[in-house]
Protein backbone atom coordinates (compact mmCIF):
# COMPACT_ATOMS: atom_id res chain seq x y z
CA UNK A 1 0.00 0.00 0.00
CA UNK A 2 1.35 3.42 -0.97
CA UNK A 3 -0.06 6.47 0.79
CA UNK A 4 -0.37 9.78 -1.05
CA UNK A 5 -2.17 13.07 -0.47
CA UNK A 6 -4.84 13.74 -3.09
CA UNK A 7 -5.68 17.24 -4.28
CA UNK A 8 -8.73 16.90 -6.56
CA UNK A 9 -9.32 20.57 -7.43
CA UNK A 10 -12.65 22.12 -8.34
CA UNK A 11 -13.24 20.52 -11.76
CA UNK A 12 -12.90 16.97 -10.47
CA UNK A 13 -15.78 17.67 -8.10
CA UNK A 14 -17.89 18.95 -11.01
CA UNK A 15 -17.61 18.70 -14.77
CA UNK A 16 -14.61 16.36 -14.64
CA UNK A 17 -16.33 14.00 -12.22
CA UNK A 18 -15.43 10.92 -14.27
CA UNK A 19 -11.74 11.84 -13.94
CA UNK A 20 -12.10 11.87 -10.14
CA UNK A 21 -14.02 8.58 -10.17
CA UNK A 22 -11.61 6.82 -12.54
CA UNK A 23 -8.54 8.21 -10.75
CA UNK A 24 -9.86 6.91 -7.44
CA UNK A 25 -10.85 3.59 -9.03
CA UNK A 26 -7.48 2.99 -10.67
CA UNK A 27 -5.58 4.08 -7.55
CA UNK A 28 -7.47 1.54 -5.48
CA UNK A 29 -6.75 -1.27 -7.95
CA UNK A 30 -3.05 -0.38 -7.92
CA UNK A 31 -2.85 -0.25 -4.14
CA UNK A 32 -2.52 3.52 -3.84
CA UNK A 33 -4.21 4.85 -0.75
CA UNK A 34 -5.53 8.35 -1.42
CA UNK A 35 -5.87 10.83 1.44
CA UNK A 36 -7.89 13.75 0.14
CA UNK A 37 -6.35 17.00 1.38
CA UNK A 38 -8.62 18.27 4.12
CA UNK A 39 -10.20 21.66 3.71
CA UNK A 40 -8.60 22.26 0.30
CA UNK A 41 -9.43 25.40 -1.65
CA UNK A 42 -9.14 26.47 -5.29
CA UNK A 43 -5.63 26.92 -6.72
CA UNK A 44 -6.69 30.21 -8.34
CA UNK A 45 -6.34 28.72 -11.81
CA UNK A 46 -5.93 30.92 -14.91
CA UNK A 47 -7.88 33.79 -13.40
CA UNK A 48 -5.51 34.32 -10.46
CA UNK A 49 -2.32 34.28 -12.52
CA UNK A 50 -3.90 36.59 -15.11
CA UNK A 51 -4.89 39.04 -12.38
CA UNK A 52 -2.29 39.29 -9.65
CA UNK A 53 1.02 37.58 -8.96
CA UNK A 54 0.67 37.48 -5.19
CA UNK A 55 -2.81 35.97 -5.39
CA UNK A 56 -1.56 33.33 -7.84
CA UNK A 57 1.05 32.27 -5.27
CA UNK A 58 -0.92 32.67 -2.03
CA UNK A 59 -3.93 30.55 -3.12
CA UNK A 60 -1.99 27.36 -3.96
CA UNK A 61 0.39 27.84 -1.03
CA UNK A 62 -2.55 27.80 1.40
CA UNK A 63 -3.11 24.20 0.27
CA UNK A 64 0.60 23.37 0.33
CA UNK A 65 0.79 24.52 3.92
CA UNK A 66 -1.87 21.96 4.87
CA UNK A 67 -0.20 19.25 2.75
CA UNK A 68 3.14 19.95 4.49
CA UNK A 69 1.72 18.47 7.72
CA UNK A 70 2.07 15.02 6.21
CA UNK A 71 5.11 13.13 5.03
CA UNK A 72 3.50 12.15 1.75
CA UNK A 73 3.76 13.28 -1.83
CA UNK A 74 0.73 15.08 -3.21
CA UNK A 75 -0.80 13.74 -6.42
CA UNK A 76 -2.81 16.14 -8.58
CA UNK A 77 -4.82 14.81 -11.54
CA UNK A 78 -5.83 18.25 -12.87
CA UNK A 79 -2.80 19.45 -14.79
CA UNK A 80 -3.91 23.07 -14.58
CA UNK A 81 -3.90 22.87 -10.76
CA UNK A 82 -0.59 20.99 -10.87
CA UNK A 83 1.02 23.70 -12.96
CA UNK A 84 -0.19 26.43 -10.58
CA UNK A 85 1.13 24.49 -7.57
CA UNK A 86 4.54 23.96 -9.16
CA UNK A 87 4.80 27.62 -10.17
CA UNK A 88 3.62 28.87 -6.77
CA UNK A 89 6.07 26.63 -4.88
CA UNK A 90 8.92 28.17 -6.89
CA UNK A 91 7.66 31.75 -6.59
CA UNK A 92 7.09 31.38 -2.84
CA UNK A 93 10.85 30.89 -2.35
CA UNK A 94 11.62 34.19 -4.07
CA UNK A 95 8.64 36.17 -2.81
CA UNK A 96 7.81 35.31 0.80
CA UNK A 97 6.09 38.71 0.97
CA UNK A 98 3.23 37.25 -1.11
CA UNK A 99 2.30 34.89 1.70
CA UNK A 100 0.36 35.41 4.89
CA UNK A 101 2.43 32.78 6.68
CA UNK A 102 5.78 31.42 5.52
CA UNK A 103 5.83 28.20 3.53
CA UNK A 104 8.82 26.06 4.35
CA UNK A 105 7.43 22.64 3.58
CA UNK A 106 8.92 20.81 0.69
CA UNK A 107 5.82 18.99 -0.43
CA UNK A 108 6.66 16.74 -3.34
CA UNK A 109 4.11 17.40 -6.10
CA UNK A 110 3.20 14.81 -8.72
CA UNK A 111 0.94 15.09 -11.73
CA UNK A 112 -1.24 11.97 -11.92
CA UNK A 113 0.00 10.99 -15.40
CA UNK A 114 3.65 11.27 -14.35
CA UNK A 115 2.83 9.37 -11.17
CA UNK A 116 1.33 6.43 -13.04
CA UNK A 117 4.14 6.49 -15.64
CA UNK A 118 6.80 6.13 -12.94
CA UNK A 119 8.74 2.88 -12.92
CA UNK A 120 7.36 1.45 -9.64
CA UNK A 121 3.77 2.17 -10.70
CA UNK A 122 4.41 0.66 -14.13
CA UNK A 123 5.79 -2.47 -12.44
CA UNK A 124 2.65 -2.64 -10.27
CA UNK A 125 0.49 -2.24 -13.36
CA UNK A 126 2.41 -5.01 -15.16
CA UNK A 127 1.77 -7.35 -12.24
CA UNK A 128 -2.02 -6.88 -12.57
CA UNK A 129 -4.27 -8.96 -14.76
CA UNK A 130 -4.92 -6.81 -17.81
CA UNK A 131 -7.54 -7.29 -20.48
CA UNK A 132 -5.64 -5.77 -23.43
CA UNK A 133 -7.25 -2.90 -25.30
CA UNK A 134 -6.58 -4.74 -28.56
CA UNK A 135 -7.47 -2.99 -31.78
CA UNK A 136 -7.97 0.40 -30.11
CA UNK A 137 -6.04 3.16 -31.84
CA UNK A 138 -5.47 6.08 -29.51
CA UNK A 139 -4.12 9.57 -30.13
CA UNK A 140 -2.38 10.65 -26.92
CA UNK A 141 -3.07 14.32 -26.37
CA UNK A 142 -0.87 15.92 -23.71
CA UNK A 143 -1.94 19.53 -24.23
CA UNK A 144 0.14 22.38 -22.80
CA UNK A 145 0.69 22.14 -19.08
CA UNK A 146 1.50 18.43 -18.86
CA UNK A 147 4.74 19.25 -20.67
CA UNK A 148 5.28 23.04 -20.56
CA UNK A 149 7.14 24.82 -19.18
CA UNK A 150 9.66 21.95 -18.92
CA UNK A 151 11.53 23.67 -16.08
CA UNK A 152 8.40 23.06 -13.98
CA UNK A 153 7.17 19.76 -15.44
CA UNK A 154 10.57 18.12 -15.76
CA UNK A 155 9.40 16.48 -19.01
CA UNK A 156 12.39 16.00 -21.32
CA UNK A 157 10.54 15.36 -24.58
CA UNK A 158 8.33 18.40 -24.24
CA UNK A 159 7.82 18.92 -27.98
CA UNK A 160 7.09 15.27 -28.77
CA UNK A 161 6.33 13.45 -25.50
CA UNK A 162 5.74 9.71 -25.45
CA UNK A 163 5.14 8.67 -21.83
CA UNK A 164 1.34 8.46 -22.21
CA UNK A 165 1.83 6.61 -25.50
CA UNK A 166 3.94 3.99 -23.73
CA UNK A 167 1.37 3.67 -20.93
CA UNK A 168 -1.39 3.09 -23.50
CA UNK A 169 0.72 0.49 -25.33
CA UNK A 170 1.28 -1.31 -22.05
CA UNK A 171 -2.53 -1.56 -21.81
CA UNK A 172 -2.59 -3.16 -25.28
CA UNK A 173 -3.78 -0.13 -27.25
CA UNK A 174 -2.00 1.18 -30.33
CA UNK A 175 -0.76 4.76 -29.91
CA UNK A 176 -0.77 6.52 -33.29
CA UNK A 177 1.90 9.01 -34.32
CA UNK A 178 0.51 12.48 -34.82
CA UNK A 179 1.72 16.04 -34.69
CA UNK A 180 -0.81 17.74 -32.39
CA UNK A 181 0.19 16.08 -29.11
CA UNK A 182 1.11 19.34 -27.39
CA UNK A 183 -0.96 21.91 -29.27
CA UNK A 184 -3.22 24.18 -27.23
CA UNK A 185 -7.04 23.73 -27.20
CA UNK A 186 -7.64 27.30 -25.99
CA UNK A 187 -8.38 26.18 -22.43
CA UNK A 188 -10.36 28.66 -20.33
CA UNK A 189 -11.07 30.94 -23.30
CA UNK A 190 -14.05 28.61 -23.81
CA UNK A 191 -16.14 30.78 -21.50
CA UNK A 192 -15.42 34.03 -23.33
CA UNK A 193 -14.04 33.34 -26.81
CA UNK A 194 -15.78 30.06 -27.55
CA UNK A 195 -15.11 30.66 -31.26
CA UNK A 196 -11.34 30.35 -30.72
CA UNK A 197 -11.69 27.19 -28.63
CA UNK A 198 -14.03 25.52 -31.13
CA UNK A 199 -11.60 26.31 -33.94
CA UNK A 200 -8.53 24.99 -32.07
CA UNK A 201 -10.35 21.93 -30.70
CA UNK A 202 -11.68 20.93 -34.10
CA UNK A 203 -8.19 21.19 -35.60
CA UNK A 204 -6.92 18.79 -32.94
CA UNK A 205 -9.92 16.43 -33.31
CA UNK A 206 -9.58 16.46 -37.11
CA UNK A 207 -5.84 15.73 -36.98
CA UNK A 208 -6.41 12.77 -34.64
CA UNK A 209 -8.99 11.35 -37.07
CA UNK A 210 -6.68 11.92 -40.04
CA UNK A 211 -3.89 10.13 -38.17
CA UNK A 212 -6.18 7.08 -38.00
CA UNK A 213 -7.06 7.26 -34.30
CA UNK A 214 -10.37 5.85 -32.98
CA UNK A 215 -10.20 8.08 -29.92
CA UNK A 216 -8.20 10.71 -28.08
CA UNK A 217 -6.71 10.24 -24.61
CA UNK A 218 -5.89 13.11 -22.27
CA UNK A 219 -5.07 13.94 -18.66
CA UNK A 220 -6.27 17.54 -18.61
CA UNK A 221 -9.74 18.58 -17.48
CA UNK A 222 -9.86 21.63 -19.73
CA UNK A 223 -8.65 19.70 -22.78
CA UNK A 224 -11.19 16.97 -22.09
CA UNK A 225 -14.08 19.41 -21.66
CA UNK A 226 -13.19 21.33 -24.81
CA UNK A 227 -12.52 18.31 -27.04
CA UNK A 228 -15.51 16.34 -25.73
CA UNK A 229 -18.06 19.15 -26.02
CA UNK A 230 -16.97 21.11 -29.13
CA UNK A 231 -17.54 18.47 -31.80
CA UNK A 232 -20.74 19.88 -33.37
CA UNK A 233 -20.03 20.62 -37.03
CA UNK A 234 -16.73 18.69 -37.07
CA UNK A 235 -15.94 17.52 -40.62
CA UNK A 236 -12.94 15.70 -42.06
CA UNK A 237 -12.61 15.79 -45.87
CA UNK A 238 -16.19 16.98 -46.15
CA UNK A 239 -17.60 14.17 -44.02
CA UNK A 240 -19.31 14.73 -40.66
CA UNK A 241 -17.28 13.00 -37.94
CA UNK A 242 -16.95 12.59 -34.19
CA UNK A 243 -14.28 11.03 -31.98
CA UNK A 244 -14.56 9.99 -28.32
CA UNK A 245 -12.18 11.55 -25.79
CA UNK A 246 -11.03 9.54 -22.76
CA UNK A 247 -9.17 10.37 -19.59
CA UNK A 248 -6.12 8.08 -19.45
CA UNK A 249 -7.36 6.79 -16.09
CA UNK A 250 -10.60 5.60 -17.73
CA UNK A 251 -8.65 3.44 -20.17
CA UNK A 252 -6.47 2.13 -17.33
CA UNK A 253 -9.67 1.21 -15.48
CA UNK A 254 -11.11 -0.41 -18.60
CA UNK A 255 -7.99 -2.56 -19.08
CA UNK A 256 -8.05 -3.54 -15.40
CA UNK A 257 -11.80 -4.29 -15.74
CA UNK A 258 -12.94 -1.87 -13.04
CA UNK A 259 -16.60 -2.42 -12.23
CA UNK A 260 -17.60 1.24 -12.67
CA UNK A 261 -16.19 1.93 -16.17
CA UNK A 262 -19.63 2.23 -17.77
CA UNK A 263 -20.70 4.78 -15.19
CA UNK A 264 -17.61 6.94 -15.88
CA UNK A 265 -18.08 6.76 -19.64
CA UNK A 266 -21.78 7.56 -19.36
CA UNK A 267 -20.83 11.08 -18.31
CA UNK A 268 -19.20 11.96 -21.65
CA UNK A 269 -20.92 14.22 -24.16
CA UNK A 270 -19.41 12.46 -27.20
CA UNK A 271 -20.43 8.83 -26.73
CA UNK A 272 -17.43 6.52 -26.19
CA UNK A 273 -19.47 3.39 -25.42
CA UNK A 274 -20.44 2.60 -29.03
CA UNK A 275 -16.76 2.58 -30.09
CA UNK A 276 -15.73 0.28 -27.25
CA UNK A 277 -18.67 -2.08 -27.88
CA UNK A 278 -17.79 -2.26 -31.59
CA UNK A 279 -14.21 -3.15 -30.67
CA UNK A 280 -15.45 -5.82 -28.25
CA UNK A 281 -13.82 -4.02 -25.32
CA UNK A 282 -16.95 -3.27 -23.28
Amino acid sequence: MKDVTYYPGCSLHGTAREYDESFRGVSELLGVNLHELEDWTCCGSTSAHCTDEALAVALPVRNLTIAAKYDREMVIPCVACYSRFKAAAEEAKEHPEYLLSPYEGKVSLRYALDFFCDKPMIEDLKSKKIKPLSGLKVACYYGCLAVRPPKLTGVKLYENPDHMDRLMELLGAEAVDWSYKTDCCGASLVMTRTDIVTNLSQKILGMAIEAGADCIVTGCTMCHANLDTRQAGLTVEGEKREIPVFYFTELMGLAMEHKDVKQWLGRHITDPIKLLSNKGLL
Partner: protein
Amino acid sequence: MNLNEAPSKTNNSFLEDVIKASNVNIQACYQCQKCSAGCPVVSAMDIMPNQVVRQIQYGRREKVLSSKTIWICASCHTCSVRCPNDIDIAKVMDTLRHISLKSGLKAGEGEIPIFHSVFLDSIKATGRIHELSLILRFKLKTRDFLKDAALGWEMFRRGKIKILPQSFTGGRDIKGIFRAYEKGRGI
Protein backbone atom coordinates in the same frame (compact mmCIF):
# COMPACT_ATOMS: atom_id res chain seq x y z
CA MET B 1 23.47 41.30 -15.65
CA ASN B 2 21.40 44.17 -14.39
CA LEU B 3 17.92 43.75 -15.80
CA ASN B 4 16.87 47.10 -14.43
CA GLU B 5 19.47 48.98 -16.42
CA ALA B 6 18.03 52.11 -18.00
CA PRO B 7 16.88 51.58 -21.59
CA SER B 8 18.45 53.49 -24.46
CA LYS B 9 15.59 55.95 -24.72
CA THR B 10 15.12 58.37 -21.90
CA ASN B 11 11.93 58.28 -19.85
CA ASN B 12 10.90 54.85 -21.11
CA SER B 13 9.13 54.01 -17.91
CA PHE B 14 6.89 51.37 -19.49
CA LEU B 15 9.83 49.19 -20.47
CA GLU B 16 11.29 49.66 -17.01
CA ASP B 17 7.98 48.78 -15.36
CA VAL B 18 7.59 45.59 -17.38
CA ILE B 19 11.17 44.46 -16.80
CA LYS B 20 10.93 45.20 -13.10
CA ALA B 21 7.60 43.41 -12.61
CA SER B 22 8.41 40.38 -14.78
CA ASN B 23 12.18 40.08 -14.26
CA VAL B 24 12.37 39.06 -17.94
CA ASN B 25 15.11 40.38 -20.18
CA ILE B 26 12.91 41.81 -22.91
CA GLN B 27 15.86 43.63 -24.50
CA ALA B 28 17.36 40.31 -25.65
CA CYS B 29 14.75 40.01 -28.43
CA TYR B 30 16.11 40.05 -31.99
CA GLN B 31 12.71 39.68 -33.66
CA CYS B 32 13.10 36.16 -35.06
CA GLN B 33 9.29 35.85 -34.68
CA LYS B 34 9.48 32.27 -33.45
CA CYS B 35 7.01 33.18 -30.68
CA SER B 36 4.41 34.35 -33.17
CA ALA B 37 5.04 31.44 -35.55
CA GLY B 38 4.22 28.90 -32.84
CA CYS B 39 1.39 30.81 -31.15
CA PRO B 40 -1.90 28.87 -31.48
CA VAL B 41 -4.09 31.95 -31.00
CA VAL B 42 -2.11 34.50 -33.03
CA SER B 43 -4.87 34.77 -35.64
CA ALA B 44 -7.21 36.29 -33.02
CA MET B 45 -4.61 38.80 -31.81
CA ASP B 46 -4.37 42.43 -32.89
CA ILE B 47 -0.62 42.64 -32.31
CA MET B 48 1.55 39.54 -32.58
CA PRO B 49 3.68 38.39 -29.62
CA ASN B 50 6.96 39.53 -31.25
CA GLN B 51 5.34 42.93 -31.86
CA VAL B 52 4.27 43.12 -28.22
CA VAL B 53 7.91 42.75 -27.22
CA ARG B 54 8.95 45.45 -29.69
CA GLN B 55 6.18 47.82 -28.62
CA ILE B 56 7.27 47.45 -24.98
CA GLN B 57 10.82 48.35 -26.04
CA TYR B 58 9.40 51.44 -27.75
CA GLY B 59 7.51 52.35 -24.58
CA ARG B 60 4.06 52.27 -26.18
CA ARG B 61 2.17 51.71 -22.96
CA GLU B 62 -1.36 52.39 -24.12
CA LYS B 63 -1.14 50.38 -27.35
CA VAL B 64 0.08 47.29 -25.49
CA LEU B 65 -2.13 47.56 -22.41
CA SER B 66 -5.33 48.10 -24.39
CA SER B 67 -4.56 45.35 -26.94
CA LYS B 68 -6.66 42.25 -27.46
CA THR B 69 -3.47 40.21 -27.52
CA ILE B 70 -2.73 40.28 -23.80
CA TRP B 71 -6.15 38.73 -23.05
CA ILE B 72 -6.27 36.36 -26.02
CA CYS B 73 -2.97 34.75 -24.94
CA ALA B 74 -4.03 31.36 -23.53
CA SER B 75 -0.84 30.90 -21.44
CA CYS B 76 0.17 27.77 -23.37
CA HIS B 77 3.89 28.64 -22.90
CA THR B 78 4.85 27.60 -26.45
CA CYS B 79 6.48 30.99 -27.10
CA SER B 80 8.55 30.90 -23.90
CA VAL B 81 9.75 27.37 -24.53
CA ARG B 82 10.83 28.09 -28.11
CA CYS B 83 12.39 31.54 -27.67
CA PRO B 84 16.08 31.24 -28.63
CA ASN B 85 16.90 34.13 -26.27
CA ASP B 86 15.10 32.63 -23.29
CA ILE B 87 12.56 35.45 -23.07
CA ASP B 88 9.64 34.18 -20.99
CA ILE B 89 6.94 35.80 -23.11
CA ALA B 90 4.12 33.97 -21.32
CA LYS B 91 5.30 35.56 -18.08
CA VAL B 92 5.48 38.98 -19.75
CA MET B 93 1.85 38.50 -20.90
CA ASP B 94 0.85 37.85 -17.27
CA THR B 95 2.70 40.99 -16.19
CA LEU B 96 1.00 43.04 -18.92
CA ARG B 97 -2.42 41.83 -17.78
CA HIS B 98 -1.59 42.80 -14.19
CA ILE B 99 -0.41 46.27 -15.22
CA SER B 100 -3.40 46.68 -17.56
CA LEU B 101 -5.90 45.91 -14.79
CA LYS B 102 -4.32 48.58 -12.58
CA SER B 103 -3.99 51.11 -15.41
CA GLY B 104 -7.65 52.02 -15.74
CA LEU B 105 -7.36 51.63 -19.53
CA LYS B 106 -10.22 49.89 -21.30
CA ALA B 107 -9.37 46.23 -21.94
CA GLY B 108 -9.14 45.19 -25.60
CA GLU B 109 -11.21 42.08 -24.83
CA GLY B 110 -13.95 43.13 -22.42
CA GLU B 111 -15.38 39.78 -21.37
CA ILE B 112 -12.14 38.01 -20.50
CA PRO B 113 -11.11 40.24 -17.56
CA ILE B 114 -14.76 40.22 -16.42
CA PHE B 115 -14.65 36.43 -16.38
CA HIS B 116 -11.46 36.44 -14.30
CA SER B 117 -12.95 38.86 -11.80
CA VAL B 118 -16.12 36.74 -11.47
CA PHE B 119 -13.96 33.63 -11.05
CA LEU B 120 -11.97 35.26 -8.24
CA ASP B 121 -15.17 36.51 -6.58
CA SER B 122 -16.38 32.91 -6.58
CA ILE B 123 -13.22 31.70 -4.83
CA LYS B 124 -13.57 34.49 -2.29
CA ALA B 125 -17.19 33.51 -1.62
CA THR B 126 -16.96 29.72 -1.50
CA GLY B 127 -13.27 28.77 -1.40
CA ARG B 128 -13.76 26.32 -4.23
CA ILE B 129 -15.22 27.00 -7.64
CA HIS B 130 -18.82 25.86 -7.84
CA GLU B 131 -19.17 25.76 -11.60
CA LEU B 132 -22.92 26.42 -11.78
CA SER B 133 -22.68 29.54 -9.58
CA LEU B 134 -19.65 30.72 -11.56
CA ILE B 135 -21.48 30.40 -14.88
CA LEU B 136 -24.62 32.09 -13.55
CA ARG B 137 -22.63 34.98 -12.06
CA PHE B 138 -20.79 35.40 -15.36
CA LYS B 139 -24.00 35.27 -17.41
CA LEU B 140 -25.54 37.95 -15.18
CA LYS B 141 -22.67 40.20 -16.24
CA THR B 142 -22.71 39.38 -19.95
CA ARG B 143 -26.52 38.94 -20.25
CA ASP B 144 -25.91 36.09 -22.71
CA PHE B 145 -28.15 33.48 -21.11
CA LEU B 146 -28.68 31.22 -24.11
CA LYS B 147 -25.05 30.47 -24.97
CA ASP B 148 -24.30 26.80 -24.30
CA ALA B 149 -27.62 26.35 -22.46
CA ALA B 150 -28.30 23.07 -24.31
CA LEU B 151 -24.80 21.82 -23.50
CA GLY B 152 -25.34 22.75 -19.84
CA TRP B 153 -28.49 20.63 -19.80
CA GLU B 154 -26.67 17.66 -21.37
CA MET B 155 -23.94 17.95 -18.72
CA PHE B 156 -26.53 18.19 -15.95
CA ARG B 157 -28.25 15.01 -17.22
CA ARG B 158 -24.91 13.20 -17.01
CA GLY B 159 -24.31 14.22 -13.41
CA LYS B 160 -21.54 16.71 -14.22
CA ILE B 161 -23.23 19.79 -12.76
CA LYS B 162 -23.64 20.07 -9.01
CA ILE B 163 -26.60 22.14 -7.88
CA LEU B 164 -25.21 23.24 -4.52
CA PRO B 165 -21.71 24.39 -3.56
CA GLN B 166 -19.71 22.20 -1.16
CA SER B 167 -19.32 23.13 2.45
CA PHE B 168 -16.17 25.08 3.11
CA THR B 169 -14.25 25.79 6.28
CA GLY B 170 -11.16 27.65 5.11
CA GLY B 171 -12.95 30.99 4.98
CA ARG B 172 -10.61 32.85 7.29
CA ASP B 173 -7.51 32.04 5.24
CA ILE B 174 -9.20 32.88 1.97
CA LYS B 175 -10.54 36.17 3.31
CA GLY B 176 -7.04 37.03 4.54
CA ILE B 177 -5.51 36.28 1.14
CA PHE B 178 -8.11 38.42 -0.64
CA ARG B 179 -7.80 41.24 1.89
CA ALA B 180 -4.06 41.42 1.20
CA TYR B 181 -4.72 41.39 -2.55
CA GLU B 182 -7.39 44.10 -2.38
CA LYS B 183 -5.17 46.26 -0.19
CA GLY B 184 -2.33 45.84 -2.68
CA ARG B 185 -4.59 47.00 -5.46
CA GLY B 186 -5.78 49.98 -3.48
CA ILE B 187 -9.41 48.86 -3.39
